[in-house]
């Protein structure tokens, strides 16, 4: 027995001390993450992996979606290879830890940009990729057209989310009494609505749209125009590395600017001999915009060729040819009444 006890005595505490000890994570990286990514040869990108339209694994085993293409664009800019990305699925709770500890280079997981996340969580938010907002879905034949029509009606929502809180805040502000019906599980929430036990159901607009396609008669349901909250979904990186942050930021602006200039993955060859100084600068024929970012000057060409512009990405995953058929709305270019705006490339 004694020998065994000795073995036990030595191994178990060693195992535990391995787990328990260790200092706080070092906060100031000596080198920029851009150099780390370059020397690693691939980008590590945190996504949800289970969100229709934003990130999912397609049947051929490849990640796809709006959030996914952000990372593919950045990989294109650095390596000229959209597939030089390793995707990590992250859940809502561990996503921030993963960025803080440097487990992922970038978080592209439909995360709402808020003040507290920007400050106390220690994130740096890149430009908004998708302007989402909380909305309410009702049945078309119910005659409900606005929030005031929901007086005294039952509204299904998920408990513990900001959705529940926003609904309460908005309705109290407007002085409209209603019956909240809350569920733990998102599937139950929508199943209850489908059975007609609630007159309305509330969630983020993008979520409502994807859920609507799964209802028995999608065309019989209407999403009200009223917006209960602002949910700007933006990719994020860790605080305190402005070189890396610049690369992420301008890769996304490249997508938006390309759409503004009318350049997409199919017609980019025609722009090669363009005389427009704005285009030549943007595509790196003239000047040295890329150098300032630590990228080759033709980084915009690489992004557009491999991934496309913002409009192409949007249409690919959320546009009219997809089951979602989500109108651009606020996600249109600023020139077309939306909010997508890129600072000038000069």
């Amino acid at each position, binding site marked *: *027995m*004694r*020998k*065994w*006890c000795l*073995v*036990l*005595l030595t*191994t*178990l*505490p060693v195992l535990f001390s391995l*787990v*328990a000890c*260790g*200092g706080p*994570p*070092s906060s100031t990286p000596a080198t920029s993450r851009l150099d780390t990514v370059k020397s690693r040869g691939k980008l590590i990108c945190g996504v*949800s*992996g*289970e*969100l*229709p*339209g934003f*990130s*999912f*694994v*397609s*049947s051929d*085993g*490849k990640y796809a*979606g709006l959030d996914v293409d952000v990372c593919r664009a950045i990989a294109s800019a650095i390596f000229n290879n959209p597939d030089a990305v*390793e*995707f*990590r*699925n*992250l*859940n809502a*709770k*561990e996503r921030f*830890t*993963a960025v*803080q*500890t*440097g*487990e992922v280079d970038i978080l592209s997981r439909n995360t709402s940009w808020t003040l507290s996340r920007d400050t106390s969580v220690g994130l740096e938010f890149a430009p908004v990729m998708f302007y989402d907002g909380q909305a309410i879905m009702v049945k078309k034949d119910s005659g409900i057209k606005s929030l005031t029509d929901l007086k005294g009606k039952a509204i299904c929502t998920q408990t513990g989310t900001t959705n529940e809180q926003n609904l309460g805040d908005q309705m109290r502000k407007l002085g409209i009494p209603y019956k909240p019906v809350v569920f733990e599980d998102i*599937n139950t929430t929508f199943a209850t609505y489908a059975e007609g036990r609630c007159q309305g159901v509330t969630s983020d607009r993008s979520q409502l749209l*994807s859920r609507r*396609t*799964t209802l028995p008669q999608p065309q019989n349901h209407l999403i009200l125009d009223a917006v209960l909250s602002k949910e700007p979904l933006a990719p994020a990186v860790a605080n305190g590395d402005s070189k890396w942050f610049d690369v992420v930021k301008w890769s996304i602006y490249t997508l938006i600017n390309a759409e503004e200039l009318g350049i997409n993955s199919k017609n980019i060859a025609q722009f090669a001999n363009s005389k427009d100084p704005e285009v030549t600068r943007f595509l790196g024929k003239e000047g040295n915009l890329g150098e300032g970012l630590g990228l080759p000057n033709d980084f915009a060409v690489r992004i557009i060729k491999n991934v496309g512009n913002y409009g192409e990405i949007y249409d690919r*995953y959320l546009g009219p040819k*997809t*089951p*979602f058929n989500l109108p651009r709305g606020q996600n249109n270019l600023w020139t077309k009444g939306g909010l997508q705006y890129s600072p000038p490339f000069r």
Partner: protein
Amino acid sequence: MNQPEIDNVPSAVRLSPLGWLRKNLFNTWYNSLLTIGCFWIFYQILRNFLSWAFTNAKWAVVQANFRLFLVGRYPVSQSWRIWIVFGILAIMAGLSWAAIAHKLPSKLNRWLPWIWVIVFAIICWLIGGGSGLTPVSTNLWNGLLLTIFTTIISIGLSFPLGILLALGRQSTLPVVRWFSILYIEIIRGLPLIGILFMAQVMLPLVLPSEIRLDRVLRAIAGLVLFSAAYMAENVRGGLQAVPRGQVEAARSLGFNTLLILLFIVLPQALRAVIPAIVGQFIGLFKDTSLLSLFALVELTGISRSILAQPQFLGRYAEVYLFVGLIYWVFCYSMSLASRGLEKELDVGKT
């Protein structure tokens, strides 16, 4: 009247099907009512289910993603490695079975545990690559492959750890005993989801930033720590079932402590608790589905990813039924194997 009752027994045993029905299901009016009621409910459920399965259900989601379910994003060009692994596993399972049934030459029998260790290293090399093979990083080990991998490693590690803890709990050295008791009671008092959360989210925060533990490794660590505590209690039950006289007899024959433990106590103790241990392994296999909450893409995790594909939105029932079937097949074969093992070792006949 005068006939002995024994004559009636065979005729009672050999009932015609109709007679059997009458005797067991329709012997009183309320039993008949219950029988008819139950059959009606059963029929309705079955009919609705079958009509859904054959008309409404769109099984294309399973067909199109079959590969994803099994190995996930493991590179197609490297699939042959997975096939070899399954081949090796099948051979090893056969060998082990033969060893348990005492059909192997004793020399091979003695080396079998070491062969397992070597085979395990080969399997890890085959799946993970490196030194000659294309490396495949763990985030590409998905689907059923990851489920089975985590289960096998967790079982392999928690089993010895559990035995050590069980022995430690019975030790005469107070430090060892109290440590074991503390460990077992703390872990048993925590939900598995909490332990996994610690392993996935807290561990990277407390470890120095130079040390990056792999996500799969962290998950396995959580499962092993949890399962070892339960294993320890199962084994302790077995240890207590071994009569004191066995140890005393062995000692009087001049066995030392280690030999007594290895050849007298543990074989009897473990044999007595096979059903409990296998039950725990089955539980462990199913518990790996919790890893999907930590975004590890095992069988349940890949199902959630597949459900987000735009062309298969809302196909929950089909996907979860299919995944459930896979889980059931594995759990049921484990319990079949355990039943065979008990039979072979004559558990309960001593």
